[in-house]
């Protein structure tokens, strides 16, 4: 009894220490979600691309008739000589960018994720990844939170088709601020990369001071009962679920797992070892998505019970973003349920 109590105390102390440590994340106070600023992640891409263009004159923008909605418009205004409009031709978007990259440019190509990489997968595999060209793919309007446009425009398979290609960096930033940083990071890092972001306004959780490094997952909340590993705009729901569970004495470690490839094995294995159970959260098919990659890593290194929050092998439909996130089981309540479920399977 006494030993168990001491152990709990030690864990509690450990949590305090970790909480001090995560002060380094410089998050905003998210205790009341109604007070959070809400900005679309695509706005971060627009801002980041202009800054990337300022830093490197070889950065160019190519767009397939979607400059406003992908937010490439700001780059077009700032650098008209470095902006290329090619119309509705997404396969060309990918292949032509590879030619420009092979000639010294750093092309960012922007379309909806459904079309690029959705329509241009083979061009991406052959002319970018196998051919090792320095192209950056910006996939806008990813996830069911695209909303009323419906299933044809809701990319929920894009992480799967991109993470499977060797030599491809895949990044899913959690908010608009992080999308600015991710845009600059992929611009500065040699090699083909896929950056995924969304259409709807979403919570701004990070600040200018929050660090960002490709391949380095971020512990946004400490805890040792269950690890919630999330990416993209659902990091907010993961934090809110953890907040709710904390009221019942369940302390969740929340990890912003923004880099799908190369994934941060160390942070994940450490979380699995400490927490003994993992819930993954993504706005994507659970089959072959971010959570599947986490499972691959943990199965080989630190197998623990897992639950997967995401789209369960179905297509989306029209609706408001919030309705759709709830309907397809990615709301805060679904995450809370997944945590309770995985806790039951956890070995003590």
């Amino acid at each position, binding site marked *: 009894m006494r030993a168990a109590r001491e152990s709990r105390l030690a864990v509690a102390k450990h949590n305090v220490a970790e909480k001090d440590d995560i002060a380094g994340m410089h998050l905003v106070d998210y205790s009341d979600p109604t007070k959070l600023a809400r900005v679309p992640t695509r706005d971060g891409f627009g801002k980041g691309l202009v800054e990337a263009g300022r830093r490197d004159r070889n950065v160019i923008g190519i767009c397939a008739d979607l400059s406003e909605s992908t937010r490439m418009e700001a780059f077009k205004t700032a650098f008209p*000589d470095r902006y290329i409009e090619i*119309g509705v*031709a997404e*396969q*060309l978007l990918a292949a*032509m960018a590879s*030619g420009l990259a*092979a*000639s010294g440019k750093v092309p960012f190509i922007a379309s909806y994720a459904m079309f690029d990489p959705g329509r241009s997968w083979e061009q991406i595999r*052959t002319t970018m990844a196998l051919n090792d060209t320095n192209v950056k793919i910006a996939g806008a309007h990813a996830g069911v939170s695209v909303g009323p446009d419906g299933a044809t425009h809701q990319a929920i398979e894009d992480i799967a088709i991109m993470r499977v290609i060797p030599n491809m960096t895949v990044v899913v930033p959690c908010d608009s601020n992080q999308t600015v940083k991710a845009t600059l990071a992929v611009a500065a890092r040699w090699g083909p990369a896929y950056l995924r972001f969304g259409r709807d306004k979403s919570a701004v959780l990070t600040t200018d001071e929050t660090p960002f490094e490709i391949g380095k997952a971020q512990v946004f909340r400490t805890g040792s009962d269950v690890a919630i590993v999330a990416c993209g705009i659902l990091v907010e729901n993961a934090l809110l679920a953890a907040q709710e569970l904390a009221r019942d004495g369940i302390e969740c470690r929340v990890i912003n797992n923004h880099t799908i490839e190369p994934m941060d094995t160390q942070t994940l294995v450490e979380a699995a070892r400490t927490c003994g159970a993992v819930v993954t959260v993504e706005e994507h098919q659970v089959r072959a998505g971010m959570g599947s990659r986490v499972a691959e890593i943990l199965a080989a290194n630190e197998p623990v019970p897992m639950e997967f929050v995401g789209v369960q092998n179905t297509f989306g439909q029209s609706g408001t973003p919030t309705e759709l996130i709830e309907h397809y089981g990615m709301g805060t309540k679904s995450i809370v349920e997944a945590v309770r479920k995985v806790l039951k399977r956890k070995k003590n």
Partner: protein
Amino acid sequence: MTHRNVPSASEIKTLEQHANDVRKGIIRSLEAAGSGHSAGSLDMADVFTALYFHVMRHDPKRPDWEERDRLLLSCGHIAPVRYSAMAYAGYFPVEELLTLRKLGSRLQGHPERTRLPALETTSGPLGEGLAQGTGMALAAKMDKKDWRVYVVTSDGEHQCGLHWEAVMTAAKFKLDNLTCIVDRNFIQIDGSTEDVMPLEPLADKYRAFNWEVFECDGNNIGEFIATVDEAKRARGKPQVIIANTVPGKGVSYMEGDYLWHGKPPNAQQAEEALRELDARGERIAAGRG
């Protein structure tokens, strides 16, 4: 400033001798590989010889030379002709041709730039080369560079939608530094192009897309070089050269037979082909080409 760059009769004779060597290299490498594409490789031997030995600004000792002309092979399956032409032009030893399609070779079944950078790109999936060439030509324009881009395409890959996306785009950006060469041999794996999916009127299609259109005998080196020379003088428009070729050209038992599109000669067939090519080499040397 333009100047005519048409070879003399004796230069053409030398080029024909090179093309004959290139064909021998194709036969030897395909026979050693035991698989690969014979007909298209052989019919483009004259075009590749012209490009590597006369037309292009390049340096085999400096494949990364910034000012080089870029040559993309969109229809990557005829890689043996490019490899053979490159070997005879001095990019690598001719004997390396015998590593074609073997484990660890730089000469992959379909070209890979990361293994052999002078290839400029990685190709094989059809219809993608012109799109990449359009990107390169646009990059040259943006940087005010005077190097040119040549893209060799098969006629069959003109059935790909992506190719025409690139055709439209090259015209929009007035890429007069871009020349597309079509290996018009009328065959593809399943048979005649006009049976599988008709391409004609091919020249009119390019004209409708605002390209300058040229046609020539793709198995006549002098005529091809003269045509490129004329095409290069176009201003404000990309150019296409429809090079009419005979599939399997140079090896009589293969000529005109689509069944040779995707298979190599066996040892006996290779020996027969090399005998024929040797005899042709002697005729060229004797001035009876």
